[in-house]
């Protein structure tokens, strides 16, 4: 068991380690490891206007995606959880899991068809990009929220609050939101990580001026190895930041869940 785990971790970490080494290597050709150390690849990435632009676009798209998912997802999760009819719940569940099951390429093609019509000529705009990321990310947030609502028995908590005199807005503010804060946070970070790394869909629907970081990154692979490594390390750093924050938030939820 231990050996399998070690092998798996090695398999997972070796490419990342090589990327990190490559990003500071001066020259790397026909050798096992690069020779010499330098920071010029990172300087080059920083100096590249299209990379700076893409980095900024990725951050904006990510922030907007998370905000919209949280604003739409919380009431939606609540509605799905509270839906009286079992059929409605099943239909909604299938519908909101579809984006997970359907390949992003299919989704992207759909977006291209819809947003290149005369009625909706918005293909290439940042908002369409955000919309695509929301569609992909929302299911994960909903899963986290609905799971937590079931685990908490939110319905009973609400009935209790109601019997104690709380109106709907009071219940939502005092009971529903605070009780869900951990899953809302961990779900949102999942959405953020997904948005930052998303390539398939973005590649199809982003315009030339609002390409996200992973799309521009692909261009780097056709240039110098060190440059490509450095550009990738930037993305990995972002992703690690998102997952570490996510893990910390999820741990908070788990600690509370286990004790409850």
């Amino acid at each position, binding site marked *: 068991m231990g050996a399998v785990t070690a092998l798996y971790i090695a398999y997972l970490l070796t490419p990342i380690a090589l990327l990190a080494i490559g990003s500071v290597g001066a020259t790397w050709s026909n050798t096992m490891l690069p020779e010499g150390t330098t920071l010029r690849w990172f300087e080059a990435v920083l100096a590249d206007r299209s990379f700076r632009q893409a980095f900024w676009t990725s951050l904006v798209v990510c922030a907007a995606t998370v905000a919209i998912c949280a604003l739409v997802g919380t009431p939606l999760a609540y509605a799905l959880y509270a839906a009286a009819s079992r059929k409605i719940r099943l239909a909604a569940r299938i519908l909101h899991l579809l984006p997970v099951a359907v390949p992003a390429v299919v989704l992207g093609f759909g977006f291209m068809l819809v947003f290149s019509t005369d009625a909706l000529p918005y293909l290439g705009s940042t908002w369409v990009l955000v919309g695509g990321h929301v569609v992909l990310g929302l299911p994960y947030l909903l899963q986290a929220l609905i799971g937590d609502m079931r685990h*908490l*028995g939110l319905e*009973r*908590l609400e*009935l*209790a*609050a*109601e*019997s*104690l*005199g*709380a*109106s709907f807005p*009071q219940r939502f503010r*005092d*009971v529903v939101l*605070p*009780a869900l*804060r951990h899953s809302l946070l961990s779900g949102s970070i999942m959405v953020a990580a997904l948005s930052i790394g998303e390539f398939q869909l973005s590649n199809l629907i982003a315009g030339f001026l609002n390409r996200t970081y992973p799309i521009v990154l692909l261009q780097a692979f056709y240039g110098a190895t060190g440059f490509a490594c450095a550009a990738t390390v930037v993305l990995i750093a972002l992703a690690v930041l998102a997952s570490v924050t996510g893990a910390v938030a999820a741990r908070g939820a788990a600690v*509370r869940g286990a*004790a*409850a």
Partner: protein
Amino acid sequence: MSLVLDGLTYTYPSSQAGVRDVSFEIRPGELLAVIGPSGCGKTTILKLVAGFLRPDGGRILVDGVDASDTPARARGMGVVFQSYALFPHMSALQNVAYPLRIRGVAASERRTRALEALGLVGLAREAERRPAQLSGGQQQRVALARALVFRPRALLLDEPLSALDAARRVETRDEILRVQKAAGIATLHITHDQEEALSMADRVAVMGEGRLLQVGTPREIYERPASRAVASFVGHANLIPGTVRDAGSIDTPFGLLAASSAGRAPGSAVTLLVRPERVALGPAPDGLNTVQGAVVRDRYLGSLRRLDLEAGGHRLTVETAQAGEVSTVHLPPSAIQVLAAEA
């Protein structure tokens, strides 16, 4: 404060389940327990009284005022839920203070009153703990304090002890009763545990299939059940089919038994109720109602023994503290109650 249910009727959408024409009164300071098999509608009664459901018919009067259309949050009922439903992100103190916060009570008074309520249930020292850091019994007491702190008009208990283990249950039973009597509040107690109901309640309401079968003191319910359904649900019961021969004797599988037919006409079918502990060992001095049979089961239950005696193709359950052989018993006429022979 008193609570009156008057012809309360409710049917769940998309099903036949619900309650029909249920009427009873809970007097000020009284604890009334509603019991019945699962699915009999007892939880529906609580939801209707709490305001979580709106009745299709009938009224709920709180101190003589119709509250049927008052929303749950304005009804002022203190509800203790089966799973306690404490807010996980709040301390015990914040949980208990919450109804006061909603009512706009000033922070300092809120704290004083919440601490006082926690003191009443013996948890003043646990005030800063979160629900997850409290035992099941402690959570239950916090829920009780929270339901009482805002001086509700009635207390509604929904299976408050079912999540506790057997040892804690008896202890907590006394605790609830002490707090309820101290508060002097009309209390509706829903439970499936008949022993809990008989030991705690001033009066017991027995429900079956959405209808109220009988309301009475625990003693009345056990000793004078109004129907076969009540007799078989509350306690152990021998239910013996019979036919009235005349005013003082009834034909049964155990032979002709002397018992008052309670005015039923000769030839009418009846059910005889005999509690197992009322069956006497040995033959009767006058030979009346003596049954001879073979023991087919003998269960040792510590403080007593429960035997099944087979005679005339019918079983008779007997409870006794005595050891030794049993083959002859008798049914004292005073131990026999004649009920209508319903299905």
